[in-house]
């Protein structure tokens, strides 16, 4: 049997065939470099995104441990920090400069490198071709380029951690004038230049990926896979890509203007500034313009982070409930609603910038509207579990955790979206709690669910369940212990991005709470190594998958061989005959009917 399955997808295989000439062999062995490094196989690229994402998550998470040590124990010193951070933590005490650098980098890394590239980079690459029945992406080469652009962005960002004046330190939103003026902060020097270069590369990576995902979904579906027979993961990933493609260019334009202001003396964002003992020549710019450009991406960005999790949770909840997802069309319509509204709410991050109150009121209305499609999704997930037959695989546990956290984090959004409450809660710990629960932990839970669920497809082995369950419970409990009390701190007015609260009469009553939170952070951070060990060891030593379809799922990825080669299916690509959630008696004792099984005579299509 030849594994040269790429033969009928010549266009896909061209580039890597060019690299070597061993067609005649029985086993079409690829050179290491083409198989693992400059691979054009969407599955390998997915794994590259995932592993890079995991490495970044460890770095970004470790940063949070460092600054939580400062926040929890402002009067103590930790010599171990000096070992890691050197000059920045002389005597074991973090300097304010580096505290702000850590906070900034933690945000940038987690939001962009982990939860954008690591999440949708992984699962869009892995699942789109497999679930729609395509041999690869529309352009495997562009896909490879997308990863390598991300890699380049990673390298530049990593280098910025080591420059003498430190990395960017103006917060992950890098608002000018702070980020535009070298005099304003140490991190606004070369660190900020590197940040901007890295982010520009990142935007390019994201656009290359996104365009590819969209064109693959629209053009490369297998026979019978109409749009309304696509699994919800694919719908979610489609809208994720649409959001990215339409909003990342706006962010880039904002960055370009910032680069101009920083290096070429323009005044897009700068006006009437006296700093470093002298008045600057800039006049007529608006610092607020940057915020509009930033949040025009920044808000869709949170949905770029959330939607893949929503799609995967839908898929996993349905599979493990042995029951169709409730309200398939309502789920699609709510995704459309969220996507459209995502573009119309950005200024709710700016209620206190002095914007016109009338404009503010429009954004309040549009923001709270998003609660409607979000609520529809939650009720549909709940109804999916109603009268189900639930198997608690590790992935299912994480999917349930995802829904729980999505509810908790979503409800607090109703507070912040209402301008008159935001007037007080803006930039307090309430905001920190809100966005960490929803787009931090909840999105991570969607990602973990996806990893545990599709690990057998990625590596032909299972991850260890025992470790998975422990990882789940500690992380879920820890997440609530960390972020739930932060809501109280926020309502009490405690501002975020403070290095030390001890000089404040109004906020120093939370000292012991801050210590408690920091301790939980450390425990939860180290618990993640259970996952990492599980992930990497199971790649090589995990229990082998012995059946094609271990979860009894209906979607097409489970019709491929256990270890699919480049091209995914041996022989013909399956034809699709039914919708993706036919979890019902197939007449042979199974409680599901895969998508490629023809309708029985007299059976109604969904």
């Amino acid at each position, binding site marked *: 049997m030849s594994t040269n399955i790429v033969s009928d997808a010549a266009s896909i295989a061209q580039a890597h065939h060019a690299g070597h000439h061993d067609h005649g062999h029985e086993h079409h062995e690829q050179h290491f470099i083409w198989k693992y490094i400059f691979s054009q196989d969407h599955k390998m690229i997915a794994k590259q995104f995932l592993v890079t994402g995991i490495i970044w998550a460890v770095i970004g998470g470790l940063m949070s441990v460092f600054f939580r040590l400062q926040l929890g124990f402002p009067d103590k010193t930790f010599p171990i920090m000096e070992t890691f951070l050197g000059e920045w933590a002389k005597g074991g005490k973090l300097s304010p400069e580096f505290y*702000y650098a850590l906070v900034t980098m933690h945000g940038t890394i987690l939001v962009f490198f982990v939860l954008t590239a690591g999440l949708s980079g992984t699962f869009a690459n892995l699942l789109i071709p497999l679930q729609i029945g395509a041999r690869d992406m529309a352009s495997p080469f562009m896909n490879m380029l997308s990863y390598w652009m991300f890699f380049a962005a990673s390298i530049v960002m990593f280098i910025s951690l080591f420059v003498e004046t430190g990395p960017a330190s103006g917060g992950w939103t890098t608002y000018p004038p702070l980020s535009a003026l070298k005099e304003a902060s140490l991190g606004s020097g070369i660190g900020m230049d590197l940040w901007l270069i890295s982010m520009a590369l990142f935007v390019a990576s994201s656009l290359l990926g996104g365009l590819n995902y969209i064109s693959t979904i629209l053009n490369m579906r297998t026979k019978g896979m109409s749009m309304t027979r696509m699994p919800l993961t694919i719908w979610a990933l489609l809208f994720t890509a649409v959001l990215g493609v339409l909003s990342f260019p706006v962010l880039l334009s904002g960055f370009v203007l910032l680069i101009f202001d920083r290096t070429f003396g323009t005044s897009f964002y700068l006006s009437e500034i006296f700093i470093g003992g002298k008045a600057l020549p800039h006049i007529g710019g608006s610092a607020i313009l940057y915020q509009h450009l930033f949040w025009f991406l920044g808000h869709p960005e949170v949905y770029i982070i959330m939607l893949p999790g929503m799609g995967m949770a839908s898929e996993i909840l349905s599979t493990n409930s042995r029951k169709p997802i409730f309200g398939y069309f309502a789920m699609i319509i709510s995704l459309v609603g969220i996507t459209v509204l995502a573009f119309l709410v950005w200024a709710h991050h700016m209620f206190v910038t002095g914007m016109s*109150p009338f404009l503010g009121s429009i954004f309040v209305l549009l923001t709270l509207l998003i609660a409607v499609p979000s609520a529809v999704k939650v009720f549909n997930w709940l109804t999916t579990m109603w009268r189900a037959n639930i198997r608690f695989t590790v992935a299912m546990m994480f999917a349930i955790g995802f829904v729980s956290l999505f509810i908790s984090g979503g409800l607090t959004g109703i507070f912040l979206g209402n*301008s008159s409450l935001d007037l007080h809660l803006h930039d307090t710990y309430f905001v920190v709690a809100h966005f960490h629960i929803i787009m931090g932990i909840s999105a991570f839970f969607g990602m973990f669910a996806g990893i545990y669920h599709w690990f057998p497809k990625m590596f032909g082995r299972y991850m260890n369940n025992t470790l998975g369950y422990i990882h789940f419970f500690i992380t879920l409990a820890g997440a609530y212990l960390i972020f739930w009390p932060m809501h*109280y701190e926020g309502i009490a007015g405690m*501002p975020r*991005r403070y290095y030390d609260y001890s000089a404040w009469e109004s906020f120093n009553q939370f000292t012991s709470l801050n210590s408690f939170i920091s301790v939980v952070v450390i425990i939860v951070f180290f618990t993640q190594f259970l996952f990492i060990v599980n992930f990497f060891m199971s790649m090589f030593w995990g229990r082998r998958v012995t059946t094609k379809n271990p979860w009894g799922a209906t979607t097409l990825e489970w019709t491929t061989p256990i270890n699919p080669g480049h091209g995914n299916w041996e022989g013909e690509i399956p034809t699709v005959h039914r919708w993706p959630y036919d979890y019902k008696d197939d007449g042979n004792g199974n409680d599901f009917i895969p998508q490629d099984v023809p309708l029985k005579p007299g059976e109604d299509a969904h």
Partner: protein
Amino acid sequence: MSGLIIIALIVLVFVIIYQIAKASEYATVLRGEAKVNRQTNRLMAWLLVVFFILGMYGVWECHRMLIDKMLPVSASEQGVGYDNMLKVTVIMTGIVFFATQALLFWFAFRYQSTEKRTSFFYAHNNKLELIWTTIPAIAMASLVAVGLKHWFAVTAPAPPDANIVEIIGKQFNWIVRYPGQDGALGKRDFRKINDANNVLGLDWTDRNNLDDIVAQNGEVHMVVNKPVKLIIGSRDVLHDVGMPHFRMKMDAVPGITTTLWLTPTITTAEMKRITKNPDFVYEISCAEMCGNGHYSMRGTIIVETQEEYDAWMAKQVPYHTLANGTPAGNATDNEGAETPEQQDTETISMR
């Protein structure tokens, strides 16, 4: 070297944990996979219920422990509206929170897989979808209505009799300016700024400036029950006048003037009694990332009676006199109001 050993030990511990977990996997196969899976399934269903119950207890316990550390009653008229709205929103979202979380964990437990259970094929129901689209929409509409009523009330133009105070942020303290006798603030020009004797860049050709009073210690004086309008600006980067006790916040943006008005209702002295804290002080916390010293950018607000205010005001010397009446070389650049001694001085000493 010891570091390497520690890392090796940690790796070893994780490898051992993995191997133990792996052993349980083999045991599963030996004891019969189906049976063990059923047991695990039941255990997980129970653990989820336990998690839910412990979680709800935790919510209660957390509330009990932290409620005393919350802000005291609102010190401004505008803040009362905020407090009411917060209450309404907490109740509304609280109900949804408990209901949906309870359903989620209850369904997980109730519909755990058993040998005889089969799932109910239930793919859609448009009536249900309609219901749970409409109800949240109505709920949101009512929150928007309540919210915007408050929003328009607090963002409406300040009453004409409001006191005017200008507050300017710089890295990392607040500079406060009062209009003086004429009730009008004179022009500022950032090109005229000079840390020695013109910290705000006041244009001395504008006669309105001559009686303006400048306080560099970030202390704002307000008269109780009298509206005060803050004219907010920044000398360098973004800042934000955060006044948690008054439930108010507004950005300070270089090149743009923002405003905010409020009516303080409780004097500092009275608030000391209410909070039973003799050190109580209304603080202004910078709420927009502004650089290394962001966390120390502190201002204070003194709310006092009209008489106290007038007595304090009578002691103030216009900045023009301070800045130009004495040799400029001696001027001290007072950096902020971090220390208690500095808070006691009412205006910066230029002598």
